[in-house]
């Protein structure tokens, strides 16, 4: 079980992902954009952050670079609909900024859960 911060502006996707993660017995906190996520991170310290890239107010790219500075041990998973196909290659950028893994939507949820398990196990393993 891992403590996950889910950042996603699309209500449907956020709700669905929250259900998927909760069912996989993870503890989930949700934010609708980068700003909200920064607020939550002031009081909470999740193991993994799953974030969308294209969001209003504060984009996933900015969020990732901030989080990497303030919480260097937190694992980050970037997800995006435009994906690697966007002109600027957001997902590639997010990976070079510090996201551990990136996925293109629509994601195979079992793959996402597997990645989360691996990262959670890895970080716990490192901690002990």
């Amino acid at each position: 079980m891992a403590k996950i911060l889910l950042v996603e502006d699309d209500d449907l996707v956020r709700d669905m992902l929250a259900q998927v993660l909760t069912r996989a017995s993870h503890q989930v906190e949700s934010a609708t954009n980068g700003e909200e996520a920064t607020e939550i991170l002031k009081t909470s310290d999740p193991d993994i952050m799953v974030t969308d890239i294209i969001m209003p107010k504060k984009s996933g790219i900015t969020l990732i670079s901030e989080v990497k500075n303030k919480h260097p041990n937190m694992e980050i998973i970037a997800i995006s609909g435009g994906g690697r196909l966007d002109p600027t290659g957001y997902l590639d950028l997010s990976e070079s900024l510090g996201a551990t893994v990136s996925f293109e939507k629509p994601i195979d949820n079992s793959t996402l859960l597997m990645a989360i398990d691996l990262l959670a196990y890895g970080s716990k393993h490192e901690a002990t």
Partner: protein
Amino acid sequence: MGRNLQNNHSDLPYPWLPYAVAMAGILVSIIVWYALPADILTIPTLLPLGICLSILAGVLVRLIQRASERKQSYKLIDETFKKEMTERIEAEETKQKLERALLQGQKLQAIGTLAGGIAHDFNNILYAIIGYAELAREDVDTDSLIHKNLGKVLEGCKRGQDLVARILAFSRRQHHDFKPVCVKETMESVLSLLRPTIPASVNIDFKAMPEDSIIMGNQTQLHQVIVNLINNAVDAMDGEGNVRIHLSHVASSDKIFTQFPNVIKGIYCKIELSDTGHGMDQMTMERMFEPFFTTKEVGKGTGLGLATVHTIIKEHQGEIIVESQLGRGATFTLLLPEYVQMTENSNG
């Protein structure tokens, strides 16, 4: 009067002729007047009459000269006028072609951007549908009808996902690796790949010039171009006919460049692909490079084939045009700039 005319038109072939005629006439009149018997000489008006007739003859000659000269100058003006008109019409046509090409390019770019934006939102929507359907599926018995029906929902989503992937493939401006590619070999490999899928009643005739044509390009993209064009040709022929593919060099002086007004003159590799299919009307030809434009039945074509071809050719700094008439097949002409290998010691 004669002098006046001569001043105006000094470039006559024989400007002296009227004067010579008049002088000769006067001379003859005087000689005749002297030679005539004495009793006739008493008529005083005879000599002036002769002189007058001579001058008249001179003027007549001058008038004839002037008439022919005018005729010539009218002819010249007419020719110049005709030439100028043709030049103007040609210039206007070139301008129109250029404007059309520019407009087409802008339109395609705009649609590409739009498609990219839509695809992004669509992926979010699809992801939500897939996620909820999977969640719901987990809650029901695997043998139940609900489980089965939710499986159909997922199947539909999979199709939507494929379509979005194709739209994105069209709108993306990925930087592909460009390497020197031998066009002839590429064509041959595509043809050997495609042959088994093409009906036996379709005859493919491939001709290439003996020497190799090398272009800077992406092999996979070029494959895609040829495959799309050949598939379109085969579809247009309803499974029967001839596809002729001809590969050749184009020098910078070639007259083909008048058909490609917005192409910089140079050495190009020309690929001509013609079919004996049902051809296209003007409206189809104007719109065929637009994404999602298709004449095929629903479910048979995505309308992205030729749009992708257009994008790829543009990425290769090339140009593509089509000539077609309903019922008379179609000919696609592609120009791709040839790769000129520079050695270290070359002077350029």
